[in-house]
């Protein structure tokens, strides 16, 4: 069995204590379903872990006027099953419910999933394996095996919830040594696979805020994986269409994951406005195909995955066109 490096473990009961510990350089554990396997691979060797498990305040899911507030400590199982989430944000419930398998979702939290480390086939391996290829930018080496001569790490953003929450205009609340701040998730991720979020040392994500739809809306999350469970997404696209009372498109958001470390917002042609969903499926799918160029950072042929972006996006929109829009007042 792979062994984790030795570490000290703290389980603070208040957010202030947690922030104080985090500020001293401890590594946060928000479920651990991503971190602990990475520790077994010795991708990190933190001396101190701070578990957020006992911060009960972070687990709440609440409707607050026009905003849904989801605590970062809520488990993916809780989010996938929550009636308010399912009613107003079906794509979020879908994405949370599509992560890994049931046992992992029972442990994994929203905060953990948002901060899932980027993944790469050349990184998420054992020490011996990595030593056989001389490491890489994200591990012990100086080269990139995905983009030879590349200077930036292109490890893949593999979170299922991130693209969906960006498409839903969600914001993230962070508590840090100098107080709280709220950031748009759309601006929270960077194209650097080594440090792909703007979370500052000592900051703890406490809550995600998602504005409730003001009118009819159709949302979906596309995830492709070889198996029906367990696997990380190898293609992911979050779709959101705001509709008028005639169910014509007023706003379209398309956000793709897994390409590099930063989710990609796909610009949708303005011509979709005023059209029905069934009429824009191919158009939006083609736009997604044009903008999404998967890399060999995860398994399965990049050209094939790119093809899937188009096919699965189109199908998801066609499916939305035939379903009554859930949610919306």
């Amino acid at each position, binding site marked *: *069995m*792979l*062994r984790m490096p*030795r570490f000290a473990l703290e389980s603070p009961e208040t957010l202030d204590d947690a922030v104080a510990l985090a500020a001293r350089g401890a590594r946060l554990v928000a479920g651990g379903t991503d971190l602990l396997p990475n520790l077994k691979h010795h991708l990190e060797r933190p001396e101190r872990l701070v578990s957020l498990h006992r911060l009960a305040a972070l687990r709440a899911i609440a409707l607050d006027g026009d905003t849904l507030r989801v605590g970062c400590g809520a488990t993916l199982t809780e989010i996938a099953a929550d009636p308010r989430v399912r009613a107003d944000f079906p794509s979020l419930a879908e994405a949370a419910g599509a992560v890994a*398998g049931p046992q992992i979702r029972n442990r994994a939290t929203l905060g953990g999933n948002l901060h899932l480390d980027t993944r790469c*086939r*050349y990184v*998420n*391996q*054992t020490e*011996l*394996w990595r*030593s*056989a*290829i001389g490491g890489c930018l994200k591990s012990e080496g100086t080269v990139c*095996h995905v983009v030879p001569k590349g200077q930036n790490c292109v490890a893949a953003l593999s979170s299922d919830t991130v693209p969906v929450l960006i498409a839903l205009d969600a914001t993230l609340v962070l508590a840090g040594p100098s107080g709280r701040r709220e950031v748009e998730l759309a601006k929270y991720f960077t194209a650097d696979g080594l440090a792909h979020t703007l979370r500052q040392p000592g900051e703890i994500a406490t809550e995600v805020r998602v504005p409730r739809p003001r009118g009819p809306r159709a949302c979906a999350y596309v995830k492709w994986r*070889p*198996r*029906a*469970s*367990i*696997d990380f997404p190898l293609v992911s696209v979050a779709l959101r269409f705001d509709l008028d009372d005639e169910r014509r498109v007023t706003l379209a958001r398309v956000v793709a994951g897994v390409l590099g470390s930063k989710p990609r917002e796909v610009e949708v042609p303005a011509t979709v406005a005023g059209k029905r969903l069934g009429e824009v499926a191919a158009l939006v799918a083609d736009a997604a195909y044009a903008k999404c160029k998967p890399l060999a950072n995860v*398994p*399965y*042929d990049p050209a*094939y995955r790119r*093809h*899937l972006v188009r*096919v*699965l996006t189109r199908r998801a929109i066609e499916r939305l066109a035939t379903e009554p829009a859930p949610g919306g007042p």
Partner: protein
Amino acid sequence: MSAPKKDHVGGWHKKLGAMDRMRGLAKYTDDLELPGMLHAKIVRSPHAHARIVSIDASEALALDGVAAVITGRDMPIPYGIIPWTQDENALALDKVLYVGDGVAAVAAIDEDTANEAVRRVKVEYEVLPAIFDPEEALRSDVKINPYSRKGNLTKEVELEFGDVDGALAGSALVIEGEYFFEGTTHAAIEPHCALAKVDPDGLVTVWSATQVPHYLHRELARVLELPARRIRVIQPPLGGAFGGKSEPFDLEFCVAKLAMITNRPVKLLYTREEVFYSHRGRHPMRMRYRTGFDADGRITAVESQTTLDGGAYSSFGLVTTYYSGQLLTAPYGFGTYRFHSRRAYTNKPACGPKRGHGSVQPRFAMEIQLDKAAEALGVDPIELRRRNAIAADDLTINELRIGSTGFLACLDAVERASGWKERRGQLPYGRGLGVAGSTYISGTNYPIYPNEMPQSAVQVTLDRSGRARIFSGASDIGQGSDTMVAVIVGEELGLPLEDVRVLSADTDLCPVDLGAYSSRITLMVGNACLNAAQELRRKVQGSVAKRWGVEKSRVVLADRQAIDREDPSRAVPITQAIEWAESEHGLLAAAGSYNTPKDRHGSYRGGTIGASPAYSMTAHLAEVEVDDETGEVRVIAIWCAHDCGRAISRGLVEGQIEGSTYMGAAEAVLEVHAVDPAHGGVHAGPSLLDYRLPTALDTPAIHALIVEAPDAQGPYGAKEAGEGPLHSSIPAIANAIYDAVGVRLDELPFTPERVLAALEEKRKRERQSPREKLPLVAQAAEAEE
């Protein structure tokens, strides 16, 4: 006699030890802890091919808690499961041959210290050119395995039966095809684990998650240079093996040697990564086939050329190379046959036997060839197979004597259960049915090392408490061999299973059995056990008959009683009967052994390899759905009818059918065991995240159909059930994909990329010559559009 009781032969049994496993009480090897035990780890090579210039263990030895470091020099005697190809060392001597090859081993007070010591062992390598392609290896001057005698050729077999070229020339139809089966591995959930201790009197005991305690015993004696009597091998309960634990591995030698050096118990549990490196899984095979048919679809000639990618060591490769041709000659008769198989060394984890050893790959090719022929001849694929089926007691073209065959009944069963007649050709485009058949051995006629001793033996004792004890050498690797012998003893002595104790796989306490491989145990150990149990039964019957003053044949043992057949009101408890017998004979003990018949194969060189006392027969019928836009294949259902001769325990047979069929379906659509030549030959992903086994959600509905054509060679007529039901699962899926969307998948696995590429290729062809060779189903679909 009344119908068989549920406890006895042909019934449903609760598998021995199942509740312990379900409740987490079973003690697997890694659950064993001994006082003062050390933990061992192995230093492994990061290079696919390199000369070891030097090994400096001083920094490791300087670490607190490190007890010993050993290298190849501490165990220089080579070993190998096949006596003619002993080409590996417990740890590399001068060269490493693949990424993951063992170089040194450390023992320390705990795993973390051992791991740290591994990091501190400095190995200087001189990197050598590595070869990952078997054809290139056969051409190359770079010699991979230092013990090799013929460059990188580990084995070559060429056999011809009849005038193949003449038969092909005279055939009404010749189908040619090239097939590639990329390797797969076993992925047993329990990683390999071994624990050794040395008694003060010098006895070395090794507990190991092995399926061949006897061969391990022999090889330990050889490499450790100890007499076999000073070594004891015990196999604790196993968490799966599937052929992946059927030869000695580095860890077993290392723990034994380290225990001898440190005088403390030493344990080593492989990481999942190491399980992938130890491998011994299915060989990648590239196979070229030409199959001739007469106008009625009878097979006139089969000609094949096969290249096996063996990896760094021979393992069972000599046998695999023979099996790649020898096991193809049933359930269909061949007019003539020639095969030429070559196995090459490459700088990869060594291949070996995986469930359906050596014959799953050629079966894939053969059954697609038949499907292509059926289409070309306009014959129903099941009908084509019926026309070619060999009959009971036939001699195959390569002179194997087939005993019983229920193959036609297997075809009938899957045809009926799947609704083939009504549904085939009626399914919408994208959905299809495919059929395939196969056969497998029930053990090999000859043991791995030549000898004339029994292949299997058991001792059975019966005591006055009314309890039977079986000492069996057989390895229960989850397949239920302990249950099998208990059922036989229960049947013969009229005891329920709970009154039968089985002690197995301990080389100090149990007689020799050669191990759990080649599907040999039910037939061989079953026969041995039956002999012993019948001897005891006769003694008990005789003693009772004497007391009653009746003929022995009137005494029946059933339901914990001895009963007078002609006057059932006269009965005594079995304990009384045993007491009478024990008074008369002393301890009631019987030894049973089994050896194979030697007259069921040809006398040509190689004619003994592939020969078995009896052959199981199988038919699979798969239903698939193919997404023609994404290339994804969903296997909806598989019907598998398997002729096991006689189901001694129905639930266990069904379990084997389901498990085998599942494993085949997994190899068909998901599993690939490969290295990455572009990155120095590292494993493509040595973890269960990257090596994808189907989850429950990805598993088709499997319908297990038991067919029984009792064979005179088997106990109660029983043949094997553990491996046969894997083979045709794969080509049935390939043929179903063709039925669904009209593309042939001649390379495994049927990944969505590959299926999509085949579909695009077909569309391109159709654009060039529209509608020409469209299958009927596809034409119908087009017409609808």
